[in-house]
C-alpha cells in the first residue's frame, strides 16, 4: 500500500488542475518560500523552503533548502532538511544531502543519500531484546558494545 502512495507521487503527478501547483521550470533560478502548495515540481534551481503536499525534484532539478511535504520524489539534487509525513522516494539519479525524517523511504540503487535519516515512528531498540537473552556472564561484553553504539 505504501508503494502505491509513492507511485502517485512520481513525476507523472497530475498537474493539469493547477490549483495549488508550483512549477519551477528547467533553466529557471528561483529564490524564495513556497507555502501551502499542493503539487510542487522543481526542474530548475530553487533556493528556499517548500511546504507542499507533494514535491518532486526532477532529474535536472536542484533544490537548496528545507522541505516539508506529504510525499516527496527526488530525482535531482537536494541539499537541506526534509521531513515527509508519508513517503520519500529517491530515484537512482537522486542526490540527497541533509537530514531526513520519513515514514516510508525508498532509495533506488545508485542514488546518493548522505546525512542523518530518521524514521518518524517509534523505533524499538533491538539491544534490549538481545540483553534479555544474554546470560549474566556476558553482560560486560554487552555493556561495552552498547557504549560503542551510543
Amino acid at each position: 500500500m505504501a508503494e502505491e502512495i509513492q507511485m502517485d507521487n512520481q513525476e507523472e503527478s497530475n498537474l493539469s488542475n493547477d490549483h495549488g501547483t508550483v512549477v519551477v521550470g528547467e533553466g529557471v533560478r528561483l529564490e524564495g518560500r513556497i507555502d501551502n502548495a499542493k503539487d510542487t515540481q522543481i526542474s530548475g534551481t530553487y533556493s528556499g523552503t517548500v511546504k507542499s503536499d507533494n514535491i518532486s525534484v526532477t532529474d535536472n532539478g536542484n533544490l537548496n533548502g528545507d522541505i516539508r511535504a506529504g510525499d516527496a520524489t527526488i530525482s535531482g539534487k537536494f541539499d537541506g532538511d526534509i521531513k515527509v509525513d508519508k513517503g520519500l522516494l529517491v530515484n537512482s539519479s537522486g542526490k540527497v544531502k541533509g537530514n531526513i525524517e520519513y515514514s516510508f523511504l525508498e532509495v533506488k540503487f545508485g542514488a546518493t543519500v548522505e546525512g542523518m535519516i530518521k524514521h518518524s515512528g517509534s523505533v524499538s531498540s533491538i539491544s534490549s531484546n538481545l540483553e534479555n537473552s544474554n546470560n549474566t556472564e556476558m553482560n560486560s561484553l554487552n555493556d561495552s558494545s552498547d557504549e560503542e553504539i551510543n
Partner: protein
Amino acid sequence: MSIFGSSDKKENLSEDNYVFPSEKPSTSRNTFISEDLEIQGEVFGKDYVELAGKIIGKAKSKKIDIRQSGSILGEVTADIVTVEGNVEGEIIAQDLYVKSTSKIKGTIKYKNIDIQNGAIITAELIKTI
C-alpha cells in the same frame, strides 16, 4: 536385479556420482548461522555468511546476508550486505541492500545503497568513494 550383477554399477555410483557434502563447492566456503544460535564475539568469513541467528560483536566477510530472524549488535563489514533483519551499530558495505523487513539503527557507510519501502532506519548515512 541380482546383487552380484549390480555390484559394478554400485561402485560407479559411489565413485563418480556421489559427492560428499564437505566437497560440494557451492557450500564449502559458506557459513550459516541458524536462528537458535547466538554468537558473542567476532565472526570472520572468507566468502559468504548467512545469518539467521544473532551476533553480538563483529561480522566480516565478502558477502553477508542478514535474514529476517537475524540480528547484529555491533559491526557488519562486507562487499555486499543484504539486510532483512535487525542491525544496531555500524554497517560498512560496497553494495548495501536494505529490505522492507529490516530495522537499522546506527551508522551506514556504503558505496551503493538500495532501500526498500518499509525499512525502518534511523541512522547516519555516509557515502564512501
